[in-house]
């Protein structure tokens, strides 16, 4: 299957270029701060306010973002069962 130039993926990448900052933390920062990040997310805190560097990384890193969103969804699922 030819998956090249998939519109949503290109849109996301162009958006990522447009919102690029000179200094961004990498995936190691997410791993290092995983507990704080997930604790804030499950509390419903606005990450852009409480953990802005990590929030920016999550905007630009699909893998980390999926990992984080899965954990939040898991926590929400647990709270309803």
């Amino acid at each position, binding site marked *: 299957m030819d*998956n*090249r*130039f*998939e*519109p*949503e*993926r*290109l*849109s*996301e*990448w*162009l*958006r*990522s*270029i*447009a*919102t*690029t900052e*000179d200094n*961004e933390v*990498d*995936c*190691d920062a997410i791993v290092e701060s*995983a*507990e*704080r990040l*997930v*604790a804030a997310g*499950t509390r419903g805190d606005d990450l852009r306010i409480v953990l802005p560097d990590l929030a920016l*990384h999550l905007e*630009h*890193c*699909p*893998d980390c973002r*999926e*990992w984080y969103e*899965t*954990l939040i*969804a*898991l*926590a929400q*699922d*647990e709270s309803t069962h």
Partner: protein
Amino acid sequence: MPDRTNAGWLDALRPRDAPDQQALTELRAYLERSALFTIRRRLSAAHGVASDEIDSLAEDSAQEALLLVLENLGSFRGEARFLTWAAAIAVGVVMGALRRRLWRDLSLEHMPDGWQEPASSAARSSGWEHPDLAAQRTEIWSVIKEVVQRDLTDRQRQVLNLVVINGVDSEEVAERIGVSAGALYKLTHDARRKLKAGLVARGFSTHEILQAFSAQG
């Protein structure tokens, strides 16, 4: 769900030669539920996987995650619930397993080079047929191609071709080319900085870039 405090978990699991068996059983069951949740949430990556294979994948991931949890108890800081921290490890393990399964037949050498395609290829992809934006998209993509060829390293060009144009997971690319996920992020971040600078130098604003490539356009 198991009802222990963080200290309770650590006390039960810390003795390496004799961890509490009830705690181990509870933790493993929790990790397996977390693994199953993750797999089902990523149905597209698990597409074509039989239900018994899903269960097997969840079991194997849970076991791997359990070992990682026990090996890394010393790194747990208590800033979150212990089970949340453990689930974070399990989710990472499952995502890695699904990623390897999804891309197991991938050959980097045979991946087509999208940077050799005309700029209109990116602008005319299915769903992007709004005529007023097509010309602007083509122009922006032309500038991107120009910056890619002029300012990016060979490795950056290769990575962007794989991840952006061909849709390969970043972590898969990192593993294949032998760098950490963090190193790959730094590489792509540097590429983004150059591309943003190139587009701005050619007179494109952030707003124009966002508007031209809006997925709804």
